[in-house]
């Protein structure tokens, strides 16, 4: 069977586990909701920022494309004859307006220069083999953006476009404009992208055209390649977390990637989760402690009560309960009921004891009566013998003694009789026996003066004297029986001493044990005396046995004076 749990653990454990579970679920829910909320908010914000940056760049590239188409339109409308000078002056005008333009030029389809701005000096040599030139020829409809390797700290790019010349395709041309990207970046409103944040412009082969931050660019490019376009809310570069956005840039073959540092989002999430987790743990611990204290308050009085109840096992019905145990109403009432119950048990027990005593008394009375017939027959036989012998005086004396003996035995039905009567009873018994057995023993009775006022249980001396005569006297020797009655301290003592065979120590011990053991039926007379004085006088009454082999035996009856002051009521 399962071991029952204590009230404390029953109160504390299920409640605590339930509460802990609830708190953990709430902490988890709060963390998930908060994280998703913060993440989606921050993602939305970062997406908006990214798209704003993209829009700024697209707006700029749109103006670049407008420049390109303006040049194309101007070329288309320039007369064939003076298109070179016309273009140069147009270039110069544009150059003065646009600081980010490094140079502008216009080439015929064979690569020869038609015109260039007068500020810079493009090489006049054929451009037919340059990649931007070939690309523009191959894709006549689009503006070709190309990015030569950066020179020093300057990022630059080239725009080339095939332009058709009105009705005569023989005069078609390729225009080329070089832009300083660094200056373009300066023209565009900056966005805060955080530590390690960057925007990178690259072509479709992932060659970087421009990047605002160069550290760990290879790593960043790896994430960009994985993403292609779109957004990736959490990429990790060098221990930092970034929001990555990549998109195409309209009307160019380029793409733009933006990395925004989101460490603050991550750390705010971490802080929140750590805080709420610790708070949750604290709440659980506090709840556990409070519950424990409550359980302790409830269970402590119950524990005390339990200890008190354990005393019942020792049959100590007078076990003093705490008159008032502090605790809950139920515990106080339980305590009260327990006290009542204990009182009742005590009463009942006492009643039972009294009843038992009464019962035993009547049994003893019957026992006392049993003594008589045996002795009576023997004595009557002795009297008959005396009469037969013609010793009538002695017979008379014996009959008188017997008469006295029985009168004292009966004592009008009283169990407790005056002490002199009891002495007298013993004396008559001795007298009768002496007459029966002749001079085989002598006796003396010595009663200390002042004992007359006491009362004793009757028939306490005679059975012991009987024992002395029956078992104590040596054959062929004159026995001696000495009876003494005296006071010693709070006790009355009666000693019956003989000089008979005596007993071995073992025998004495055996006899003493038999007095206490109700199952052993040995030494009937002595045991009977012992039991009766115990019943009447309580535990302080006793019988003392002293004996030495071949020396004699001395039995002392000890009775508390207190109990001997009054007769039977």
């Amino acid at each position, binding site marked *: 069977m399962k071991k029952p749990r204590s009230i404390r653990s029953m109160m504390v454990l299920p409640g605590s586990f339930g509460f802990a579970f609830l708190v953990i679920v709430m902490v988890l829910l709060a963390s998930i909701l908060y994280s998703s909320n913060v993440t989606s908010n921050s993602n939305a914000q970062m997406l908006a920022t990214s798209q704003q940056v993209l829009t700024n760049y697209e707006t700029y590239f749109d103006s670049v494309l407008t420049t390109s188409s303006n040049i194309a339109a101007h070329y288309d409308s320039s007369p064939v004859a003076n298109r070179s000078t016309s273009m140069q002056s147009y270039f110069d005008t544009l150059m003065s307006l646009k600081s980010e333009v490094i140079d502008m030029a216009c080439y015929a389809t064979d690569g020869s220069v038609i015109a260039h701005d007068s500020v810079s000096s493009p090489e006049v040599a054929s451009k037919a083999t340059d990649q931007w030139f070939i690309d523009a020829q191959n894709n006549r409809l*689009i503006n070709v953006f190309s990015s030569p390797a950066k020179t020093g700290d300057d990022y630059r790019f080239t725009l080339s476009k095939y332009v058709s010349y009105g009705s005569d395709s023989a005069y078609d041309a390729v225009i080329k404009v070089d832009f300083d990207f660094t200056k373009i970046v300066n023209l565009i409103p900056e966005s805060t992208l955080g530590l390690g944040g960057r925007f990178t412009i690259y072509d479709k082969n992932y060659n970087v055209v421009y990047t605002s931050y160069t550290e760990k660019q290879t790593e960043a490019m790896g994430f960009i390649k994985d993403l292609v*376009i779109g957004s990736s809310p959490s990429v990790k570069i060098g221990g930092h977390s970034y929001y990555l956005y990549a998109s*195409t840039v309209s009307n160019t073959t380029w793409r733009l990637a933006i990395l925004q540092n989101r460490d603050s989002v991550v750390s705010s999430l971490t802080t929140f989760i750590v805080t709420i987790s610790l708070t949750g743990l604290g709440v659980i611990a506090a709840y556990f402690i409070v519950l424990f204290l409550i359980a302790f308050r409830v269970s402590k009085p119950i524990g005390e009560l339990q200890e008190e109840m354990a005393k019942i096992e020792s049959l100590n019905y007078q076990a003093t309960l705490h008159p008032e145990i502090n605790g809950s109403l139920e515990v106080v009432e339980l305590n009260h009921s327990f006290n009542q119950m204990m009182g009742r048990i005590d009463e009942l027990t006492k009643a039972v004891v009294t009843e038992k005593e009464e019962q035993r008394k009547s049994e003893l009375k019957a026992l006392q009566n049993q003594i008589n017939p045996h002795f009576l027959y023997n004595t009557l036989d002795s009297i008959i013998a005396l009469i037969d012998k013609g010793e009538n005086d002695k017979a008379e004396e014996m009959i008188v003694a017997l008469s006295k003996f029985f009168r004292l035995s009966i004592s009008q039905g009283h169990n407790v009789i005056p002490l002199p009567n009891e002495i007298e009873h013993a004396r008559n018994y001795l007298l009768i026996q002496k007459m029966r057995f002749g001079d085989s023993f002598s006796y003396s009775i010595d009663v200390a003066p002042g004992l007359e006022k006491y009362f004793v249980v009757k028939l306490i001396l005679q059975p012991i004297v009987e024992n002395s005569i029956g078992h104590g006297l040596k054959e062929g020797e004159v026995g001696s029986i000495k009876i003494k009655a005296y006071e010693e301290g709070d006790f009355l003592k009666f000693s019956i001493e003989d000089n008979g065979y005596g007993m071995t120590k073992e025998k004495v011990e055996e006899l003493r044990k038999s007095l206490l053991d109700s199952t052993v039926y040995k030494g009937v007379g002595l045991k009977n005396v012992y039991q009766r004085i115990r019943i009447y006088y309580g535990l302080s009454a006793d019988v003392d046995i002293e004996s030495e082999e071949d020396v004699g035996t001395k039995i002392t009856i000890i009775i508390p004076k207190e109990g001997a002051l009054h007769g039977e009521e």
Partner: protein
Amino acid sequence: MAKNRKIGLWALLPLLLLSSCGKKSTYVGVYAYDLSDTFINSLQNKIIKDLDPYYEHGEYAEDAMSSQTLQNSQLINDIDSHRICAAVVNTVDRLAASALIEKAEKNNIPLVFINREPLKEDLQKNAWSVANCFYVGGNPNAEGLAQAEIANSLFGGQSSFALSAFDKNKDGKIQVAIVKGEKGHQDAEARTSSCIDGLSASGYNFEIVESVYCNWKRSEAYTAAKTFSSKNIELLFANNDAMALGVIQALQESDASSGVPLSDFKNRHYPIIGCDGTIEGKAAVSYGYMTGTVLNDDTTQAALVVDVLRKTIDNISIPAYDSNVTFKDNYYYVAGPKITQ
């Protein structure tokens, strides 16, 4: 028993989740650059109608409203959420096709580009793109040439033009105005250059007196045409019908303000040649306001888009088309007929 049933339901849950995630989508997304464009609107309707027997699809195409950024996010969301098994894309910016193809390749999503032709270097970037990415569109060069043919059959050659009433200033040259669609749009540029090439090939002397971008829009063409009145124009090519109608509307309004009856339109004004063959365009031809138009055959294009998809997804071979469909690798061009009455 009740308990068992409950357990059974719980056991089914992961299966349901698995099946909803694991099952390959049969949804084909259609992405239009701008549904306010009448031609695109009609084309997407026809594509969706043709898709219907074979694939799941949206009720309308996703509308990018002329923003490539918006279209990128529409397409990426659908790819990332595994909503689509293939996509029909009408890009805002034809150069964006490069990134879209790259993204599609990572997810193995076939793409059919319509109307805006991706660069060859993008559409034929690698073996995957050749096998899974296509372009289906009109044949702008054929359309441009057809526009020139309409003009040629009207004028009857350079010599008869020079003597005719069409040569208003009697200089023996055609003063040509061109209303172009969109800067960088391959159809606009190709139609423009082809119709000019067509005129040259037919031996006409001409000069271009007007060349404007009106972004395929009737309203922009209408506004632009208001400024044409001072110029001597003897022939007008518009890259599409909508813009041609914008020009016609501007001319009709100026006629109406000077009390000229509508029936006189054809005699008073220069020939106008459009392209696309929209319903309104065809009506304008039948009324004589427009000399002619070339059908941008959206019916055939839509059917071809679905056929290409079925071939790619389900390996069902493309049925035979008339000779007006030409294809080269993964480029499919549909040339439409001339409409002159």
